[in-house]
C-alpha cells in the first residue's frame, strides 16, 4: 500500500512495524518528527513499547545499551550534535555487540551551528563499529529500518546499525511511501532472541575489560562481523525483496553503468538528482553513469572495484570533509582502486555542506570536469561562493 506521508512519519511507522520493546531518544532537529510520531503511536496504543524520555543522547544510547543487553529490541534516533554526544557509547555498544538500530537524520556539525543536511555527523562516527547504510528516498529509509534489525540481530553479525537519511531533504519531505504490512514484517522479522542476555538464572557479566592478551582478538571479531555484513546485507535485501517486492540490491547500486565511460559516486538523497542528471547527459549522448553507495561501513571495496573497472574516470561527491585532507569517500574509493593497474582517474568533489543544495547543473559541471580532466581547484570545494571570501584560488 502506498500513502503520501512525511519521511519522519514513514520511519515512525516502520519502527512500529518492527515492534521494538524499548525506545529511548532525545529530541534534536531534524530528527524531532520521528520521535514525536513514535510518542504519539505509543500514546494512542498503536505501539506497545517502553519509551524512555532521556535527558541526553548519551543516555539515550546508554538506555538502549542496557535494554539491549537485557534482551530487548531497541530503537533510537538522533543527528549531528546528538550523535556526537553519543560518540563514547557508540563504540561501547558496538564492542558489546548489541544490535541496536538507530536512524540518523543527517545534519552538519557545529561550529558554526547549522541545522541543515550534510553527512559530517555519521561520517565522523565511521570507526565506531556500527554498520552505516544510507537511504535515497523515504521508502528505502523505511524498508531499511526493518532490514536493519535483521542485519543487526543476525548471529553472524551482532553489531548495531545506523540507517542514515538526509535531514529535512528526506525527514521533512512528503512523498508517496510504500507502507509496510504488519503481517509481512512479522514474517520477515521474528522477535529478538539473543543467545546471551542479562538474567538472574544464568548471571553473566557484560562489559568486562580486556588486557593486551585479549583486546586485539575482540577487535578482530568485531571487524570480521562488519566484513561478514558485506554478504549479509545483500542477502537480507533480496529476502526482503521476495516478501515485499522491493529489492535495493547490495552494498552499492549501479545506475546506467554498463557502458558508461564516466561515473559519479554519491550517497543519500542526492543520488536521485544525480540519476536524473545521468539521464539528461545520456540524452545528449554522454555515456554517464552513477553509483549509489548504500553501505559506507562496511565499505564495499570489491563492488566499487568491479563497478569502476575499465572506466575512464570517476568522480566522488563528498558531503563531508576530513579537514586537513579531503572528502572521506574520495579517500576510500581511491584506496579501493590502489591495486588496479588500469584504475580510472579519480576526482573528488566536496559539495552540499550544511544544507547547500546540489542542483542538476552542479552534477553536470562535475561530469564536465571528469570528462575534460580538469584540475579541481579549491581543495575540491565545488560549490564555493568565492564572492563572500577574501579569495585566492588554490
Amino acid at each position, binding site marked *: 500500500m502506498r500513502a503520501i506521508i512525511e519521511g519522519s512519519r514513514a520511519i515512525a511507522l516502520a519502527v512500529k512495524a518492527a515492534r521494538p520493546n524499548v525506545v529511548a531518544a532525545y529530541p534534536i532537529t531534524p530528527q524531532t518528527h520521528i520521535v514525536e510520531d513514535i510518542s504519539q503511536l505509543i500514546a494512542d496504543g498503536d505501539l506497545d513499547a517502553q519509551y524512555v524520555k532521556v535527558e541526553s543522547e548519551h543516555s539515550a544510547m546508554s*538506555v538502549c545499551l542496557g535494554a539491549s543487553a537485557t534482551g530487548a529490541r531497541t530503537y533510537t534516533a538522533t543527528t549531528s550534535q546528538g550523535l556526537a554526544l553519543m560518540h563514547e557509547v557508540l563504540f561501547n555498544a558496538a564492542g558489546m555487540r548489541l544490535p541496536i538500530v538507530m536512524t540518523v537524520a543527517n545534519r552538519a556539525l557545529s561550529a558554526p551551528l547549522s541545522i541543515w543536511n550534510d553527512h559530517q555527523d555519521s561520517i565522523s562516527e565511521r570507526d565506531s563499529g556500527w554498520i552505516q547504510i544510507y537511504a535515497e528516498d523515504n521508502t528505502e529509509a523505511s524498508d531499511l529500518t526493518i532490514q536493519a534489525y535483521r542485519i543487526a540481530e543476525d548471529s553472524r553479525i551482532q553489531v548495531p546499525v545506523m540507517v542514515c537519511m538526509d535531514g529535512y531533504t528526506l525527514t521533512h519531505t512528503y512523498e508517496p511511501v510504500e507502507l509496510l504490512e504488519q503481517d509481512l514484517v512479522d514474517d520477515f522479522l521474528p522477535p529478538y532472541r539473543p543467545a546471551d542476555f542479562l538474567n538472574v538464572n544464568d548471571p553473566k557479566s557484560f562489559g568486562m575489560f580486556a588486557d593486551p592478551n585479549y583486546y586485539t582478538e575482540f577487535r578482530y571479531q568485531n571487524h570480521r562481523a562488519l566484513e561478514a555484513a558485506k554478504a549479509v546485507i545483500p542477502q537480507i535485501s533480496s529476502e526482503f525483496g521476495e516478501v515485499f517486492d522491493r529489492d535495493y540490491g547490495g552494498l552499492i547500486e549501479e545506475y546506467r553503468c554498463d557502458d558508461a565511460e564516466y561515473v559519479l559516486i554519491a550517497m543519500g538523497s542526492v543520488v536521485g538528482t544525480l540519476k536524473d542528471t545521468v539521464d539528461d547527459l545520456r540524452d545528449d549522448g554522454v555515456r554517464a553513469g552513477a553509483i549509489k553507495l548504500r553501505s559506507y561501513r562496511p565499505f564495499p571495496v570489491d563492488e566499487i572495484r568491479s563497478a569502476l573497472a575499465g572506466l575512464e574516470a570517476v568522480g566522488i561527491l563528498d558531503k563531508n570533509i576530513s579537514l586537513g585532507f579531503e572528502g572521506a569517500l574520495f579517500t576510500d574509493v581511491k584506496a579501493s582502486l590502489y591495486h588496479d593497474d588500469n584504475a580510472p582517474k579519480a576526482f573528488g568533489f566536496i559539495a552540499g555542506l550544511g544544507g547547500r543544495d546540489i542542483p542538476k547543473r552542479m552534477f553536470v559541471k562535475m561530469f564536465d570536469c571528469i570528462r575534460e580532466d580538469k584540475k579541481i581547484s579549491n581543495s575540491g570545494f565545488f560549490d564555493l561562493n568565492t564572492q563572500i571570501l577574501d579569495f585566492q584560488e588554490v
Partner: protein
Amino acid sequence: MQAQEAERPIDLLASGHRACAGCGAALTIQAILRATGANVFVANSTGCMEIISSQYPQSAWKVPWIHSLFENAAAVASGIEVALKALGRDDEGKVVVIAGDGGTVDIGMQAISGMLERGHDVCYICYDNEAYMNTGNQRSGSTPFDASTTTSPFGKKSFGNDRPKKNMPAIAAAHGIAYVATTSVGYPRDLAKKVQKGIAVRGPAYLQIHAPCNVGWGFDSAKTIEIARLAVETGLWMMYEIVDGELVNVMKVPRQQPVEEYLKQQRRFAHLFKMPGGEAQIKLIQDAANYNLERYKAVSPVGTREIQT
C-alpha cells in the same frame, strides 16, 4: 570422618577479585549483595570496583552484571529496568546501580538526575571512597575538606582540597524520590537494612555508603572498619534516612569523638598536624562536624536513635 557443613557467606562477589587488601569498597559490595540476595541486576560504573572484578575472562560477580562506561550507569540501569518491564520480566529481580563517588556526584550527575526524575524502579548505590581511586586518588566532588589528594595536594599554598563534600543525598532527595539513605561499611547491619529498604521501595532510591580506602586515604589495611566508624563517631559522616522527603532516623552519636582521632590516622590529613596553620584547619573541620550533628538533629522531625551495629 563425618560430613561437615561448610557455610561460606553468601559471597555473591566471589573471592579472587583483585581489590587491595582491606578494601572498604569491596567489603561494601559484599555487604550490599548479602542484603539483596541473588535476584538483582547490577549496573556498575567504571572505577575500582569494576576493574577489580571484571578482568576478562574472570568475573567476580555471581549476579547478572553490566559495565558500560564511567558516567552512564544510571542510564544503563534505566534501560535494564524498562527492558524487564517490556519483556514482562519485571518480577525477575531488582535493578541496582553500584557506582563510585566520582561516577555519581561528578560525571554521572546528569544521568542520575534523569533516572531519578523519570521514576525508574532502580536502587542507586554510591560507594563513597571520597576520590577517584581507580585513576590514582584524584579529588572528586565527594572528597572532604582539606584532604590531600593527587590533584588537591597540600603544599606551601594549599591545605589540600579546599571545598567540602558535595551533598549528593540532598540533591537526590530534591528529586522527590521515596527513599534516600546514607550508611557506612562500618555498620553492616544498618547497611543491610537500608539496602533492603532501598530495593523494597517501588521507584528510585538513592543510597550513599561511606567506604574507606586504605590505599588512597593512607591508613593500615586492618583499620578499614575502625576508620569508617570513627567518621561517624566524630560527626564527619552522618547516617540518616530521608523518607518521602522527611529526614528521619538520624543515627545519634552518644559520645562524639574529636575529629583529630579520625584525621590523625590518615595520611591524607597528616599535613594538618605538621603545617603552620594546620591547627586552625582542624578547628574548621571540628566546627563542621559539630555543625553536622547540630543540624541533622535539629531538623529531624522524628527523632534519633542510638548508634547500633
